[in-house]
């Protein structure tokens, strides 16, 4: 009696072992290599840089946080489109006969049905996803049987390298890789093409494409004062391109038929005000500036005051570059914001980050965020070889969207940030 039980058990174990072994083999065989396919495609004349390309124009929104009842001018589509887009993206279930059979065997997991009601096609994916997390042989074997995809070791290394080299940082890279692993399994990816598409979508998703990226630089109406100019404060560490960005943004606004006033609150660096004045001259905007060494808060205040009087559409305030570690300078920046706030609400605080900046970018964003409540990030110098991957971390940790991208020294080299375009440039 007992011997038959043992026999049965042994048999079952042997069968299982065989099945799992087969699964592992299948999985191995099915591993996708990105390297071979990828190499041939890529043009070898690398340090080309500046892969970032986008067709759309910078979207602007009126300032005035409290009274944003009015519909955004050129901002993202209104809410009525929503119901249509929510529809489940139905995954193409490949007609794999043997897969479906396996599914039926493994399926009896009642608690899954109880808690979630989803189309059956999702269950297989969820199972794969769950298995993907376990790195055991058993899990891998089952995964193989379920037709989950995986990359070979070289490809994983390559993916990891790409991300690390783009300054995503060790932690974010690991996170993305984990996500990718799960996604590859759940989606049952089979070809390098698909794998690359999945990688791209994982990255795009990590950039939260749904964030509001319009720059609040348009005037808004208030009940008491009538038209109020939008006030934009530009801040950042030294040498990231604040003045240039301010100039370019002014140009974008002027090109859109708006009137702009520039406030040169960088009273510290030699000739910074002149640099801004040159920009203002180019675009035909007025500049309010103080003496070298003057109180930047006072200059900013004067600029806004002048802007309100002259009824311009936007006041852009350029501040001096300051390292986030200098408490005194950060207090000064806080004061600029506070003092200007007495006159008009600051609608947009743009933090200018240099794409070449590495992991320190996060520290910068964090401190600036604490001091002046950053509402948008401008990633400059993306025309070089730097990828600017630090914004992944910055966006995630601060919840502040990247709004603009600087692409060079030319007057028109300012573009809206688009997650897709950014990721394409990163993977190029």
């Amino acid at each position, binding site marked *: 009696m007992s011997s038959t039980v043992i026999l049965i058990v042994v048999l079952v174990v042997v069968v299982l072992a065989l099945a799992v072994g087969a699964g592992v083999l299948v999985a191995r065989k099915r591993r996708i290599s990105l390297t071979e396919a990828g190499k041939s495609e890529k043009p070898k004349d690398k*340090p*080309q*840089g*500046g892969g970032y390309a986008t067709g759309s124009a910078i979207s602007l929104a009126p300032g005035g946080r409290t009274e944003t009842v009015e519909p955004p001018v050129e901002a993202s589509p209104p809410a009525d489109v929503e119901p249509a887009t929510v529809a489940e993206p139905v995954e193409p279930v490949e007609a794999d006969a043997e897969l479906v059979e396996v599914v039926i065997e493994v399926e009896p997991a009642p608690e899954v049905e109880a808690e979630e009601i989803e189309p059956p096609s999702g269950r297989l994916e969820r199972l794969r996803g769950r298995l993907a997390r376990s790195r055991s042989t058993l899990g891998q074997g089952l995964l193989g049987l379920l037709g989950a995809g995986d990359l070979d070791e070289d490809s994983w290394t390559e993916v990891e*390298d790409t991300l*690390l*080299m*783009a*300054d995503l*940082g*060790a932690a974010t890279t690991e996170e993305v890789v984990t996500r990718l692993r799960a996604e590859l399994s759940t989606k049952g990816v089979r070809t390098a093409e698909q794998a690359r598409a999945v990688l791209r979508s994982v990255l795009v998703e990590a950039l939260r494409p749904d964030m509001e990226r319009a720059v609040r630089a348009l005037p808004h109406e208030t009940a008491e004062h009538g038209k109020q100019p939008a006030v934009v404060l530009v801040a950042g*560490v*030294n*040498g*990231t*391109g604040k003045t*240039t960005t301010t*100039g370019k943004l002014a140009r974008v606004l002027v090109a859109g038929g708006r009137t702009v006033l520039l406030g040169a609150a960088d009273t*510290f*660096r*030699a*000739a*910074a005000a*002149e*640099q801004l*004045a*040159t*920009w203002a001259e180019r675009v035909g905007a007025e500049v309010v500036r103080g003496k*070298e060494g003057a109180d930047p808060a006072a200059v900013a205040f004067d600029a806004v005051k002048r802007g309100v009087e002259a009824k311009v559409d936007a006041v852009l305030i350029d501040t001096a570059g300051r*390292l*986030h*570690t*200098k*408490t005194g300078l950060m207090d000064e920046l806080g004061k600029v914001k506070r003092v200007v706030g007495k006159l008009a609400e600051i609608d947009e605080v743009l933090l200018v980050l*240099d*794409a*070449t*900046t*590495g*992991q*320190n*970018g996060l*520290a*910068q964003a964090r401190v600036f965020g604490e001091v002046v409540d950053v509402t948008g990030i401008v990633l400059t*110098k993306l*025309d*070089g*070889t*730097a*990828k600017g991957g*630090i914004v992944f971390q910055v966006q995630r940790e601060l919840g502040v969207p990247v709004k603009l991208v600087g692409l060079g*020294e030319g007057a028109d080299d300012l573009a809206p940030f688009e997650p897709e375009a950014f990721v394409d440039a990163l993977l190029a």
Partner: protein
Amino acid sequence: MFDTLSDRLTSVLQNLRGKGRLSDADIDATAREIRIALLEADVALPVVRTFIAKVKERAKGSEVSQALNPAQQVVKIVNEELVEILGGETRRLNLAKNPPSVIMLAGLQGSGKTTLAGKLARWLVGQGHRPLLVACDLQRPNAVTQLQVVGERAGVAVYAPEPGNGVGDPVDVARRSIDEAKHGQNDVVVVDTAGRLGVDEEMMRQAADIREAVQPDEVLFVVDAMIGQDAVTTAEAFRDGVGFTGVVLTKLDGDARGGAALSVREVTGQPILFASNGEKLEDFDTFHPDRMASRILGMGDVLTLIEQAEQAFDQEQAEAAAAKVASGELTLEDFLEQMLAVRKMGPIGNLLGMLPGAGQMKDALAQVDDKQLDKLQAIIRGMTPAERDNPKMINASRRLRIAKGSGVQVRDVNELVNRFFEARKMMAQMAGRFGFGGPGRVSKTRKGKKGKKGKGRGPTPPKVRGGMPGFPGGLPPMPTGGGGPSLPPGFAGGMNDLPPGFDPSKLKLPKNPKDN
């Protein structure tokens, strides 16, 4: 902030004590941590790879030392490798035999070339040269004006024949500047060029043309310490496009770890000559490889701490206080003075972060903030001079008065007074144990730290005691591993020569000849 490599390694290697030597598995485990630490410090990936391979090679089979735990030992190896790469061959600026010598600056936009030009000029003036600044950045709006202002501040001549803003030929300006320098009796010419990207072929050609035109004795590649993985690509592009002979790291006053230094050094083989760490013209220094290594690893920067302490502390006062500490006669007045001196060195959290081994006390440290010190200061200031001199006389009614006067609760005053007595006792003991009061500079820092701990530690008393001995305990690895190599010889030597329990007051005798 305190998430340092040594902390990480300590946790990985916790169970390792007592083993005879590092096993391969241990080394692999640590290699991963080192890798992450280096990546977080922005060392470029290819450099990280080769570096780790090297460290593994060295760590294999190396004896576990008696003095260091395995984590410290690995850190020591890593640190030594770092110092070796960073400082392999430090050298001085090459100047031509026949003046004028020409120094050309090149780098990305916003790396700080123009500012650096001013700093370099000032430094050269200090060395007895007569530099001439040449404005070859005709690209960026008003870069020329900026250089003129910078030159004026530095008190040197500026050659700027072209207005800039896109007008003029920088190559021509560079060429003419040499004659100008000969006329003006300038023996060093510093050529400031426009920022350019490595991928911008046209601009790189222009840089090469300028180089051809002036035949510089030094081409300095100016790189921002905050740069990330792109450092390698950029450095290679500049090496191939312009060819540089030295590197300058800027913006080191931020909190970037500066792994780029390692990347650039390793990839191009060119030495790092200068470090610039501030906005003022005098914030400019030669490069210290050992400090950079500690910084990249996120280890305590003891040397910088010592330097800051030197600036903040009055030597005689500090020595007097040290003697008092040792004899257990420290008064609240001294306490206050030391505290003020410590505070001059910057926010307390930053200072503590520089201490090696601070990671172990990070929870306690997180609670120390300057506001508490303000409070302590207020309490002590609320006391009469007599009370400060002799805290024992502070009875209940005096406490009440002090509390009212300084706007705190009586219990805060109690706490301060009690803790002061405890701290004083402990300091006296420690002073005896560590032969403290040794050579001036060191004694100053140590006392500074002590003073700070004794009081800053108000809210978390038990940790204080763990922390205080932890500090001297944290030092031993440093002389061998950390910033050790460049510690003043007087330090290590002095410490070792002292018999334990030596009365510090007698130390003044051997010390004085040394100071003279």
